[in-house]
């Protein structure tokens, strides 16, 4: 830990007296390196989206904080994440997204792996034309699988393999949103976008957690979703965010509205919630659609927000609903783009030598403080 412990002690004070995370957490690459292990690899981090490997045999390599990983849908339809390296010489196995016909073949010496990671054959390993050797134990040389779990379309990974089961890790959020535990359908290319932002990943999380900024950064919301219509959501150690009590989607030009998830309780008639599940996944749930945002931490000062929108029925993914999906995606993109100058401005601000982490509003900033407290606690372990 390169940041003095007293700095973090200030972060873990109650919100009334706490300070924000110190600036090295945003501008020091050494802290970013430590976060990889202590914040990301020890927890369940967002890696990508299951919709990117929809069919058996689909494979998608992803570099995550320097780790070469690959998402694979095996022949039984199970989504798996592996370290994307051959057990022989450490060669990268899959360079680009595509369909694996039957086996993953290393492009170097052609060791072949089943889609479930088992080592299938080791050509010429015992000499030309001999594919076996007593010291090559195939059952010990399968691909290194990374624990993974899919929820609300997002693929989470626990790189170090030591975190509690995802169902326990995110138990309070799973319970809170149990009513959304239905199949959801990705809207397709028009429901997918990404934003590259020049900021540390945490600033994107922090900005998402709180509603304090809404009237200033998203003035378009003031007419129908006022600040006082929002409430804080805080689950110390796991997630925080905000909710609204006035989600009223505008009908499309022909009067249509997106179909709703079945069986929702009254709360969701006009309710919607926006939660950051630590460390790097942002969700929004509404009666008629959800979205997930995986924040990819590219470097200590650069992040990519991968945004994917999901609907309640397969029919909504068809052409009949395309214009409405485009309109919905455009609405969200406009809001998220409005946030870019804020998170990039805070990133620049973190280079001010006198900045002390910042003073929270005891009333309005508690979801952000909840996140800072969690990061500080992870980094003190």
């Amino acid at each position, binding site marked *: 830990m390169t940041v003095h412990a007293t700095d973090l002690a200030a972060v873990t004070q109650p919100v009334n007296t706490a300070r924000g995370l110190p600036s090295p957490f945003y501008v020091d690459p050494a802290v970013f390196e430590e976060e990889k292990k202590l914040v990301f690899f020890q927890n369940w981090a967002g890696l990508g989206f299951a919709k990117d490997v929809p069919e058996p045999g689909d494979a998608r390599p992803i570099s995550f904080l320097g780790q070469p990983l690959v998402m694979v849908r095996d022949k039984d339809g199970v989504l798996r994440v592996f370290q994307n390296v051959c057990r022989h010489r450490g060669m990268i196995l899959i360079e680009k997204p595509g369909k694996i*016909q*039957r*086996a993953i*073949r290393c492009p170097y010496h052609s060791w072949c792996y089943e889609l479930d990671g088992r080592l299938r054959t080791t*050509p010429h390993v*015992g000499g*030309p*034309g001999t*594919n076996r050797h007593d010291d090559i134990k*195939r059952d010990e040389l399968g691909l290194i699988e990374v624990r993974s779990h899919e929820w609300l379309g997002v693929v989470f990974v626990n790189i170090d393999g030591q975190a509690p089961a995802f169902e326990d890790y995110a138990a309070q959020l799973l319970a809170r949103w149990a009513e959304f535990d239905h199949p959801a359908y990705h809207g397709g290319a028009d429901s997918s976008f990404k934003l590259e932002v020049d900021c540390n990943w945490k600033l994107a999380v922090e900005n998402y957690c709180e509603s304090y900024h809404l009237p200033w950064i998203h003035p378009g919301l003031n007419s129908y979703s006022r600040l006082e219509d929002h409430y804080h959501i805080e689950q110390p150690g796991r997630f925080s965010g905000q909710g609204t009590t006035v989600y009223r989607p505008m009908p499309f030009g022909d009067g249509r509205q997106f179909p709703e998830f079945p069986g929702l309780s009254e709360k969701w008639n006009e309710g919607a919630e926006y939660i950051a599940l630590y460390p790097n996944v942002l969700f929004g749930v509404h009666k008629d659609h959800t979205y997930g945002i995986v924040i990819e931490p590219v470097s200590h000062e650069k992040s990519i927000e991968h945004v994917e929108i999901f609907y309640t029925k397969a029919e909504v993914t068809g052409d009949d609903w395309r214009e409405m999906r485009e309109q919905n995606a455009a609405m969200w993109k406009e809001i998220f783009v409005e946030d870019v100058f804020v998170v990039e401005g805070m990133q620049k601000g973190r280079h001010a030598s006198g900045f002390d982490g910042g003073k929270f509003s005891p009333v309005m900033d508690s979801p952000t403080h909840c996140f800072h407290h969690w990061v500080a606690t992870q980094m003190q372990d």
Partner: protein
Amino acid sequence: MDRATLDAALIEAHGAGDKRRLVSLYTQAADAAEAKGDIGACCFHLTQAYVFALACGARQAGALHARLLAHGREE
């Protein structure tokens, strides 16, 4: 197909990344070697064919594996 023609076809198929053609050509090379009693060369070519059959999902993979297994070269 004589050896020179087969080698040229293999080079061409490798260059084109035509895995199904490679399965076929390496199997032909294996068959020719086996006919001459050269089991080492046969298994080399069977291995090549088997790997490309696995890579492209060719139905011959099972039969190629069985031949290698019969020669004690596979698991």
